[in-house]
């Protein structure tokens, strides 16, 4: 009887070890799931001011071929303290990450953001062009 018990316990331990060591779903360096999706684009773009209200005068124009985003903001917008918001295709992620206020005041050197697809293979860099509403 004792011999059989040892065998059973050993088998259980082996099964546990096997399950524990089997390969999990792959994740990237941010702990995000790597999927099979290869799509890579920005679907929507928002720009909020320090008061968390939109500063756009119209919807941002996103060109997924030219990889550009064009947004016109209100006259007098404080370009140094803006919160950009990107909506991306499923499973994609953005680089660099947006962690707080972003300074868009250097209009001659527009900000660039790279969208990385769900499979982490396709990368597309978008350029964000901001235009301040002109005074007539």
């Amino acid at each position, binding site marked *: 009887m004792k011999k059989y018990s040892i065998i059973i316990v050993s088998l259980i331990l082996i099964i546990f070890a096997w399950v524990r060591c089997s390969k999990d779903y792959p994740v990237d360096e941010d702990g995000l799931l790597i999927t099979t999706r290869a799509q890579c684009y920005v679907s929507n773009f928002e720009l909020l*001011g*320090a*008061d*968390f*209200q939109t500063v756009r005068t119209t919807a941002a124009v996103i060109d997924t071929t030219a990889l550009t985003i064009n947004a016109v903001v*209100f*006259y*007098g917008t*404080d370009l*140094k*303290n803006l919160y950009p918001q990107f909506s991306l295709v499923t499973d994609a992620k953005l680089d660099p990450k947006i962690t707080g*206020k972003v*300074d868009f005041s250097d209009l001659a050197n527009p900000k660039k953001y790279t969208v990385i697809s769900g499979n982490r293979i396709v990368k597309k860099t978008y350029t964000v062009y901001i235009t301040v*509403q*002109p*005074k*007539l």
Partner: protein
Amino acid sequence: MQRKYFSLIPLILIIFFNSCKNDEYTVPVGKTGLNNDCIKRTLGPNIVGNNIEFAYAIALPAKEGKIISAQVEATIPAATGTYLENRSFYTSASGVDVGITVGSPSVTTDTKTVVTFTKDTCASTLRFFYTIPEAARGKSVSFTFSATASNGQTVSYSMGPYAITKMDMKLDLVATDNKACYISIADMAIYDAATAAANADKIDLVYLYRAITGITFNHALASPGASAEYLPGITLPAGVNKVTKMSKTWALNDFNLARLQYGIYIDDVDFQVVDFTNAPNFVINLKAQAGTWVETADGKYRAYVYINAVNNAASSMTISIKRYLMK
């Protein structure tokens, strides 16, 4: 089943019958003697000049006597306007608080406020309004509520300590374009051009209203040192040139300033944590319920300017200010 387990059956039965027995209901017995309780009714920061309100309840069984007096002792002498209600309130069927006079008007002497009862009453809830004195700014204040009954019993109840904020508040200042449009945070006042020239070093903001075709300028607050682009048509009085940092907000409806239904309070700590890095020196397109954090050029004061109302026809803006001394 083995025989030895049969001995457990009586024990199980005893437990079963005991657990199923109904408890007899007994009428609760009220407390005897003089009792009291207290709650603080006001919320938010305790601002100098404003009231802290309490409700102090006192009661004893009718057969044991009646209430003779109630008093409140504060650790810091109260400002003028402090009083302990001499009326006990109940809420009528229509939801209105109705006051019944139970004593003579309260008398405040130094730290004590006393009401002497004139009606034969054994239960009463009195409101206490402590007007915060200047001496309490930045300190803590505590209260001891106490009551005496005709049978010689006394009770007391301690409340606090409550921190009194360092901030100042000014409500409903009206700025008018091209007239009283120079705002001083140091004085918490709005001046016209002539007075602004005499207080040039205290002018932190300029109010203006411009309906400019093609852009949304409308009601604006700009620091005197802002680009002329944001002060169109303004000729600043001599010496008015401060560069004030600002950070626009929306729907930060502080209860003290807005007096609306929102339970939002700006307290001392909120001024300390505002980040003015790269902050602009103007805010335009302001509407009612918007506001702006402000830091004066010398960094001495931080303030929150709330916009209560704007009037396009009159080119005016009603503002309320909370100000915090930083250094």
